[in-house]
């Protein structure tokens, strides 16, 4: 196929791309000749993989500054935070910058926006690139003004000499000045002098969102755009045996019916015409289904009986310490849904042989590769542009909708095609957060401290992201399907099913086993916090069980086993903010506490909760929560607080209400009636978030740090209120009521 190439970022820079390319080739060639055997230290964050400064910062001759990130704004607010970081290190006003997010034509390849990595990877890259760009501008000014660089100041995008002579960044910048590789270290601002970082600057995306501006991929209206709907099979593995489309093609507004094997879609001029045609097409399609789903009410034993690859991921032995009192417990988690409020959507257009896809994917580059594989097009002929969608909280239908749009757009060359999934499609077809089982066993020594600790986790992988075309529904369903690739565990230290399985506490004897289950009875992938949600729920619930056995206060019990000083600080801060141990809960209420450091390497979070349990109905309600978080150097305090508040409410919803349901053949939780989530009547009276700022320390990812502690904190408060320990998620009204009654 002689497909055209969509030019990459290097070709479209202002000021003569060809010249820049020739410089970079010369440099690369020179490096090949001279690079010594030992690799030099790599620059920090994503600069490691995309080292050129102009991959991150562009300064035009007119002084306009653009910041590039390969990460996707998903509603976390980091676009604003990145703008703060760049403004700070460049010494320019916040409002003078623009940030461009993930786009395969414009930005660096930063893989997926996941794992609370954005601040660490991209924020760090932008910080260092901006600081090094400023140094280059100062050096250029020193040369032109013939003064020492140390005498120069920079302010609001202008370099100022001691005698008052001024040169703007736009005057100083020249063609290839920023097309240099980053140095391993940068002259970052002294943390005590920060002016823009550390401020709660209002988010740049909110004004459009609250006034009806174009804010989401759903809002794109390209000239001549048509509306498509897919008709998905009724269940996993269903085969389309018959479908008479003649009547549907004659329906008002219908442009085309697209069929490729089990992939079925309809395109119409107007959106509601497409919906009517979709309904007619769904009625016309005859499917052969297979009853292959596991038994929902027996899920834990289904999982633990599947073949697994077992590995000991942590082992510590001190034969001099042995336990005296031993308890064990099993905790379970069901499949849970991302449940984006806006079902997935994408727009695609095939023009002159090149495909452009607008998607709320978390990974424009891997999604581009997967779509290229599916369409058998060179990836250079495909451009994927991230446009915000509804919050995703992990791998929802975004990539699949992008693939659907590309499939349909290929059948309608030149025409922009917008695909909008239905609520039922999002609920039935998204890849869920995996079900999990954990088995814990621990002993206390004579002094009431944990002598030995055993933890086993049974889980699928927690990422089936593309990856490869086989991860896309459209590619699985087309006439020549692409097989789903084999599942792989996500390696430690971050881990997938074993994320946060290794205890952060210090135990003299500890043994942690990861039972990785390759077979996936239900479609699953990454959901916010991955295995950490259930592992932290299990560990922190069991810590309370052990504290009760030892007769020690739960907060004190945790501190007795924790060496990490930053961990101790957040525990003490949350306890203090909550007023822990100051009085007892009212008779129908309980207090709960939990703590974790996400992945044992990202942000620290401790949460204290007060929960009310109605003993008549079994209904549990979070009344108030107090959190403390240490995310390293804080860039936007209000943004961080917003993330933690959201984590507490979302995790409380997962923990109290949520499980995917299915019969032998079909997913049956397909809307908000069959998959209820937390509503306003269950919103707590207050949530308080205390930040422990660490100026000058590395950014720690915090978007997912609250999920595990919030779950365990609520569960511990329910146990405190009722005297009953519930270990199977979700902790529904019925389960609580049954436990109280028995």
């Amino acid at each position, binding site marked *: 196929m002689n497909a055209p190439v969509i030019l990459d970022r290097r070709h479209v820079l202002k000021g003569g791309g060809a010249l820049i390319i020739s410089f970079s080739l010369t440099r690369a060639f020179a490096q090949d000749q001279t690079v010594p055997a030992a690799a030099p230290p790599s620059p920090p964050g994503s600069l490691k993989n995309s080292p050129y400064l102009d991959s991150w910062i562009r300064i035009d001759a007119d002084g306009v500054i653009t910041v590039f990130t390969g990460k996707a704004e998903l509603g976390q607010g980091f676009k604003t935070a990145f703008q703060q970081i760049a403004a700070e290190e460049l010494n320019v006003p916040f409002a003078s910058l623009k940030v461009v997010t993930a786009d395969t034509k414009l930005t660096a390849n930063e893989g997926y926006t996941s794992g609370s990595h954005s601040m660490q990877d991209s924020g760090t890259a932008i910080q260092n690139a901006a600081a090094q760009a400023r140094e280059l501008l100062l050096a250029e000014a020193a040369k032109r003004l013939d003064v020492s660089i140390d005498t120069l100041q920079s302010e609001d995008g202008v370099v100022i000499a001691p005698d008052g002579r001024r040169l703007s960044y736009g005057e100083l910048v020249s063609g290839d000045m920023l097309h240099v590789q980053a140095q391993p270290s940068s002259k970052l601002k002294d943390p005590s002098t920060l002016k823009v970082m550390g401020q709660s600057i209002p988010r740049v995306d909110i004004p459009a969102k*609250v006034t009806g501006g174009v804010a989401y991929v759903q809002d794109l209206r390209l000239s001549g755009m048509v509306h498509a709907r897919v008709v998905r099979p009724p269940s996993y593995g269903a085969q389309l045996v018959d479908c008479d489309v003649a009547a549907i093609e004659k329906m008002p507004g219908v442009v085309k019916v697209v069929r490729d094997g089990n992939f079925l879609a309809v395109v119409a001029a107007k959106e*509601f015409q497409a919906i009517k045609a979709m309904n007619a097409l769904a009625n016309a399609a005859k499917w052969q289904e297979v009853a292959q789903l596991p038994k929902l009410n027996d899920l834990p034993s289904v999982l633990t009986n599947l073949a697994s690859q077992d590995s000991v991921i942590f082992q510590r032995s001190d034969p001099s310490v042995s336990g005296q009192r031993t308890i064990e417990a099993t905790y379970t988690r069901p499949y849970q849904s991302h449940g984006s*409020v806006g*079902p997935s959507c994408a727009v695609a257009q095939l023009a002159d042989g090149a495909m452009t896809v607008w998607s709320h994917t978390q990974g424009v580059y891997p999604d581009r590769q997967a779509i290229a594989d599916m369409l058998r097009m060179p990836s250079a002929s495909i451009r994927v542009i991230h446009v915000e969608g509804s919050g995703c909280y992990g791998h929802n239908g975004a990539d699949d909708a992008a693939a659907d749009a590309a499939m349909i757009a290929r059948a309608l060359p030149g025409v922009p095609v917008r695909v909008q999934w239905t609520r039922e499609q999002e609920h039935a077809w998204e890849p869920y957060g995996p079900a999990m089982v954990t088995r814990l066993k621990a002993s206390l020594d004579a002094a009431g401290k944990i002598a030995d600790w055993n933890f086993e986790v049974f889980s699928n992988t927690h990422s089936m992201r593309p990856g490869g075309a086989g991860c896309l529904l459209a590619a699985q369903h087309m006439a020549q399907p692409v097989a789903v690739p084999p599942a792989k565990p996500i390696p430690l230290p971050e881990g997938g099913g074993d994320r946060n399985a290794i205890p952060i506490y210090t135990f003299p004897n500890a043994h942690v086993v990861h039972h990785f289950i390759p077979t996936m009875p239900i479609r699953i992938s990454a959901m916010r916090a991955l295995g950490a949600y259930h592992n932290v729920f299990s560990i922190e619930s069991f810590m309370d069980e052990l504290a009760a056995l030892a007769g020690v206060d739960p907060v004190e019990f945790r501190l007795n086993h924790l060496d990490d000083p930053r961990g101790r600080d957040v525990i003490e801060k949350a306890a203090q903010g909550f007023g822990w141990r100051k009085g007892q809960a009212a008779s129908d209420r309980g207090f709960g506490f939990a703590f974790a450091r996400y992945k044992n390497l990202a942000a620290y979070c401790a949460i204290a909760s007060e929960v009310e349990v109605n003993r008549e109905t079994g209904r549990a309600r979070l009344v108030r929560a107090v959190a403390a978080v240490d995310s390293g150097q804080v860039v936007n305090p209000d943004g961080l607080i917003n993330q933690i508040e959201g984590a507490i409410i*979302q995790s409380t919803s997962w923990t109290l209400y949520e499980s995917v349901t299915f019969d032998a053949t079909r997913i049956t939780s397909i*809307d908000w009636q069959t998959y209820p989530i937390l509503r306003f*009547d269950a919103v707590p009276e207050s949530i308080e978030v205390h930040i422990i700022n660490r100026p000058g320390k590395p950014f720690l990812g915090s978007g997912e740090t609250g999920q595990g502690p919030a779950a365990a904190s609520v569960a511990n408060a329910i146990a405190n209120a009722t005297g009953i320990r519930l270990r199977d998620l979700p902790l529904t009204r019925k389960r609580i009521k049954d436990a109280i009654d028995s």
Partner: protein
Amino acid sequence: MTTLKVNGREHQVDAEPDTPLLYVLRDDLKLNAAKFGCGLGQCGACTVIVDGKAVLSCVTPLVLLEGKQVTTLEGLGTISEPAPIQRAFMEEQAAQCGYCIAGMMMRAQALLLRIPKPTDQQIRAELAPNLCRCGTHMRILRAVHRAARLMETAALSPAEKRSDK
């Protein structure tokens, strides 16, 4: 053709009478604020105001709207001249992804038109049909209280505003 009055202006709409208002707003009138969330009346993302009341536009057919006044978020204010409820949501930073927010604001606006100073319980009860998945609820509640205060101030005459300070 159906005559539809949206944000104070009359539009001639060429759509089937059973077309839900949501698609008329988004597809025919090119308005962004009302969002598709479920099409089932379960989530509130599509909420608009019809004759002063919060209505789920995804399940309200065009045929029922002839002669009625439809208001969307775009009809309340603009980015440069935001309405009190829009200012309040900006000032409280009451959004994460923000997809549910337009619907939340319209339902809250309908409440404030009816009850200018609602209690916290009244706001929670009113907003119960609307889902937020990011967990922005605490900020949404604060923003509605703030909007009530801003609307009260806006309703005062200039002299009253001065003496209020």
